[in-house]
């Protein structure tokens, strides 16, 4: 029978003993200690690991969460408002001599409400009053009629034939405050010219403009 049997210890050799093995594998001893520590605090270690993982996952999710685009900013008030000349009106009761009234519409086309804080006109010989009195607020989709009464203070300094007269309106909304000139077109120019010529041509008395 030929075969190779177990190698027997020869000279200089000997069977390893258990403690020798441990001595050679020192790191194993450390692992064993960790294992022992882990064994002693298994629940706490697991809870710690789970907590860390949840925290890391949550942090990652939060950091990379889908971001909602910021809501669009409301338009500047001057871009959201339309003003148009409507027609002449009877002069406001109690108005001083050389006064006349007319009506304009103010429409907020879109966005948040717009507040009219001031209405003026640029000519030296005139001043005006507004009903309703400023400031007043107008919402989108609800046009507002405004009655403007102009008073001539100096006939020598009024534009009796201006081609494109305008009103200056200060507007405010959630975005900004702006002063905008509204050029109200030929009908307004014609109305203003006629009213001024009557007011200044007929002496210091009320001009009843209808």
């Amino acid at each position: 029978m030929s075969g190779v049997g177990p190698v027997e210890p020869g000279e200089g050799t000997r069977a390893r003993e258990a403690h020798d093995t441990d001595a050679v594998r020192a790191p194993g001893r450390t692992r064993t200690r960790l294992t022992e520590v882990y064994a002693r605090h298994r629940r706490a270690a697991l809870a710690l690991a789970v907590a860390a993982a949840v925290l890391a996952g949550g942090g990652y999710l939060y950091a990379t969460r889908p971001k909602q685009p910021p809501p669009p900013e409301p338009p500047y008030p001057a871009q959201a408002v339309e003003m148009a000349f409507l027609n002449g009106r009877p002069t406001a009761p109690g108005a001083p001599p050389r006064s006349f009234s007319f009506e304009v519409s103010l429409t907020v086309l879109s966005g948040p409400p717009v507040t009219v804080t001031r209405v003026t006109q640029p000519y030296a010989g005139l001043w005006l009053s507004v009903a309703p009195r400023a400031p007043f607020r107008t919402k989108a989709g609800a046009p507002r009629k405004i009655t403007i009464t102009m008073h001539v203070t100096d006939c020598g300094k009024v534009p009796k034939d201006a081609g494109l007269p305008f009103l200056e309106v200060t507007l405010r909304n959630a975005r900004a405050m702006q002063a905008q000139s509204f050029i109200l077109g030929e009908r307004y120019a014609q109305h203003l010219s006629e009213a001024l010529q009557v007011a200044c041509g007929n002496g210091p008395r009320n001009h009843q403009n209808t």
Partner: protein
Amino acid sequence: MRQRSLIAITAALAAGALTLTACGSRDSGDKGSDSGNGGGTTVVIGVDAPLTGDLSALGLGIKNSADLAAKQANKKSYVKGVTFKIEALDDQAQPSSGQSNASKFVSEKEVLGVVGPLNSSVAQSMQKVFDDAKLVEVSPANTNPALTQGDNWQTSKARPYKSYFRTATTDAIQGPFAAQYVYNKAKRTKVFVIDDKKTYGAGLAATFTDEFKKLGGKVVGTEHINPDTKDFSAVATKVKNSGAQVVYYGGEYPQAGPLSKQIKAAGAKIPLVGGDGIYADDFIKLGGASAKGDLATSVGAPVETLPSAKEFVANYKAGGYSEAYGAYGGYSYDSTWSIIEAVKKVVDDNGGKLPSDARAKITEAMQNVSFDGVTGKVSFDEYGDATNKQLTVYSVENGAWKAVESGTYNGS
């Protein structure tokens, strides 16, 4: 075994976290095609502007902005089956060149609309050529009222050409708006009026003068200059001796800059006021430090007050164009887009294809085009004029134009 449990739990949690993250929807930014190709039919939009010469800064801005609009339409496949292409021709600000360019566009059957020109005098030479061919033309910059309302626009308006549209406001409003500002706000009552004898400059000076006089202002002198020269010393001396409190110039920045400088050098420390033709950075460069306080009106509202313009500005920057979009960039984009909208309408109405009489149909469709553009709501009135009529007064401050007054016209 216990170690394996710990690893398994951690791995499961990590995998869960990653899965959740992957499931989360988020904006990926651009979802459109990057091909820039909208489909099988190519529609050419012609662009006519001064691409060389003194006014090329404005012309190149017009060309680039038209190019951007076409690219955006292609990127979005805005008109199914149609790819838009820009063909730009240089008119050198010369009416004769503009007319030749118009004939060339008409001869190319793929051209279904034209953006331009910059100059009203050039437009006059092109209108009939386009109208005879029923080829629509949309100008981003022409402001002379006669182009849409006829030569007798002050007494009886009559539209001369149904194929001509514009997105810019006219001088019928711009001149008087400037007069109102100068007389009422700047408190200048004596003006010296100068123009370059061209359609735009002379027309604008006339509308300014008319309103200034109506307001009670006095014209203390008038002069015409030759736009081919840069020596305005004789005119500057006349201005100095006239006692004028302000100079109004109807013309463009290549002459306005040196004119302003020479007037101040002659001893008349008074502001020069002009229209959109001088509203360019080059005016400030040419006018030098003494241009401080000079004024210009320009069509439209200041770009920074238009939310719609922000996207245009960002896209223009991303487009890598080497020249600025200038005073008419937004209007050029809107002019081009109005042609794209008209093409879309015609294609949609014809079962997704261009009809054989596409040019005539597109011209017809243009009248009812309406969209929210870079410069606001874009649509046209019965004369082909823009319904959006906004104007701004700018002043030179610290070497740059600064908006000082804005106005909205509503003639209804």
